[in-house]
């Protein structure tokens, strides 16, 4: 079950195509899956960036961030994942908005693609804005171009598109008076906050795909709780998309750091395991 059919990597972002026909059949834009690489793994949420009902596959882009993503990154074609649960979360709200801006950073470059595609199919003008440290780090571009009226780039070093980040491109558009009817953002929490701050002065309806820490993904634990407009919501079942202007970002950033210490411990124990493995094989 859940065989890995395709693997590639672009710097530290890993593409993984997985056999999961039931999920491919029922998934919609904006939804995610929860994955365990092995029986020992943590359950981690990952956005489904594409799917194919003919081949029965889903596509994930995994940013190496710690032990779980690293273990997934080490998996090869032919390996099988222990558990893939999904689709989870409420799909993106797709309708005729007019002009839709979708901003993506790190895993969000791939992650915004299904929503962009659905928005395009619903007759919207779609503008995708993607950011990276420098030019070779972009991925999934061909697909994104195919469903967007425009793809704008931002790079930290200025090697492609505007020097800066997604929010700088958004601000520039808004300053120029370009009308945006709906904005979607996906990426790290800091990026989501900055982008929400960029659209706030112009009161652009803004949805952000939150990435709080999750466990079950079906509403039974509350690990993923976030404060939105003064109310506690569970990101896995009430979201992941919320109004970016109402999210309590300070709380989210703190909650995301809850396991920082343990993340280091487990990472070190893993490196230690790798070293001993190598020693056993006589490579060290």
């Amino acid at each position, binding site marked *: 079950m859940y065989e890995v059919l395709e693997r590639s990597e672009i710097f530290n972002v890993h593409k993984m195509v997985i056999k999961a026909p*039931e*999920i491919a059949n*029922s998934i919609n834009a904006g*939804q995610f899956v929860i994955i*365990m690489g092995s029986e*020992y*793994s*943590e*359950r981690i949420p990952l956005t489904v960036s594409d799917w194919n009902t003919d081949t029965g596959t889903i596509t994930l882009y995994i940013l190496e961030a710690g*032990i*779980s993503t690293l*273990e997934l990154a080490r998996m090869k074609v032919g390996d099988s994942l*222990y*558990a*893939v*649960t*999904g*689709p*989870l979360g409420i799909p993106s709200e797709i309708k005729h908005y007019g002009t839709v801006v979708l901003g993506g950073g790190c895993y969000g470059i791939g992650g915004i693609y299904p929503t962009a595609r659905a928005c395009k199919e619903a007759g919207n003008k779609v503008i995708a804005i993607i950011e990276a440290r420098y030019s070779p780090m972009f991925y999934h571009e061909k697909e994104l171009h195919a469903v967007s009226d425009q793809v704008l780039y931002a790079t930290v070093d200025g090697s492609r598109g505007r020097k800066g980040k997604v929010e700088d491109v958004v601000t520039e558009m808004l300053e120029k008076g370009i009308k945006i009817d709906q904005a979607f953002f996906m990426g790290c929490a800091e990026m989501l906050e900055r982008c929400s701050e960029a659209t706030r002065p112009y009161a652009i309806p803004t949805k952000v795909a939150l990435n709080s820490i999750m*466990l*079950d*993904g*079906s*509403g*039974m*634990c*509350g*690990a993923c*709780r976030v*404060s939105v407009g003064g109310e*506690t919501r569970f990101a896995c*079942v009430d979201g992941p998309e919320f109004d970016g202007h109402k999210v309590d970002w300070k*709380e989210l950033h*703190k*909650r995301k*750091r*809850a*396991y920082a*210490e*343990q*993340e280091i*411990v*487990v990472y070190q*124990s*893993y490196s230690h395991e790798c070293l001993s493995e190598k020693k056993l094989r006589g490579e060290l």
Partner: protein
Amino acid sequence: MALTTKERMAIERHRMAEQPPDFRNRNFEEVPYGYTPEQAVAEAQRCLSCKKMPCVSGCPVEIPIPEFIALAAEEKFAESARLIKTKNVLPAVCGRVCPQETQCEGQCVRGKKDIAEAIAIGNLERFVADYERENDLMEVLKIQDKNGLKTAVIGSGPSGLTVAGDLVKLGYKVTIYEAFHRGGGVLVYGIPEFRLPKKIVEAEIGALEDLGVKIYYNSVIGRLYKVDDLFHSMGFNAVYIGVGAGLPIFLDIPGMNLNGVFSANEYLTRSNLMKSYLFPEYRTPMIVGRKVAVLGGGNVAMDSARTALRLGAEKVTIVYRRAREQMPARAAELHHAEEEEIEFRLLSSPVEIFGNEGGWVTGMKCQRYELGEPDESGRQRPVPIENSFFEFDCDQVIVSIGGQANPLITKTTPDMKVNKWGYIEVDPWGRTSKKFVYAGGDIVTGAATVISAMGAGRRAAKAIHEDLMKESDETFTQGWW
């Protein structure tokens, strides 16, 4: 040789040997070791085989208690276990987790004066079931010829497992859809290893699979398929919903979203299902608290408190709004918790949780309560005492004040009636308002017990069989004409 009543009366109740409190509070092994065969026989001999069988009337599924005990007294342990299984398919589980003091043992004539002298029915149930399993005497059950009908069971908790077992034996093709990557529901993700070893649940699930029950894990119904899809695209003839209560409740007080505040569900799921007590071998992280406060007074609160202790907490305090006598936890759990030196702050409830700059819990402020007039349930209502606040330090708070219905399935099945709290409405046999859809367990009753969930499963299996047989007779006659 048969004993006289007098001789039987002279035998004192046999307690199970246990790990000593100051040893077990740092490991996750089961606390009681169980009876030896000799102890089991001697305990069984205490039973008076009362004609009126008050114990049986206290049992929600009416296990033939004096009969199974009589078999145990004759050392026919496997036969004894099989007799229980005609009424209760999970005796090794129920022997460990049923609130016997309010059920069978609560009615036992020998416990009339002192409940501690009632026949140890739970211990005996556990012993004979363990004996059967550990000696590989589990019977391969006979199943009737396949009848060509397909049933789906949503959730693999005790109620779902019971329905699946009953239906597969009747000749149905049974498919279970379970949201998690492992089966057993609360038995696996909620109740800790030191109270219910997971290998017991695994053995039961294995036995069901041997009978041909197919289990699809990682399948969240309501998202992956809707209930209607199960009928229309997947061709099931009936669907049973046994998804448990699920949703945690948090208090509406400041500080609930600080780091270090967990729902009991999260805390126990991390530790039990994800095995984070074996971190970092198992990757799911767990933060070990130094001073842990647990809110609530039920089994869930006791399990959380005792888990915190075993994970390495220096001090664990239970904060409960009512008095000791009103705690809904099983007597054995309270007793074990007290032995393990868990502190109880009764008649108190938090009003605020304090945190530091980094967003971590540092302490909490509570208000004292006193007991007032009885409420509808007959329990004296706790009333806050004005200006009676106190504060104490803690770095973790585990909230276990109850659950709520998870709306994932009910919301995606709008033509099935739910009550005002979101629990599914059923007739006494588990029939919902939607044709060929049945429900039982915590999703119908709210948080209850393992045995009541199993009882509901058994009744629903009967209803499903009756309804489908009637339907297929009709189809058959229609086809004929």
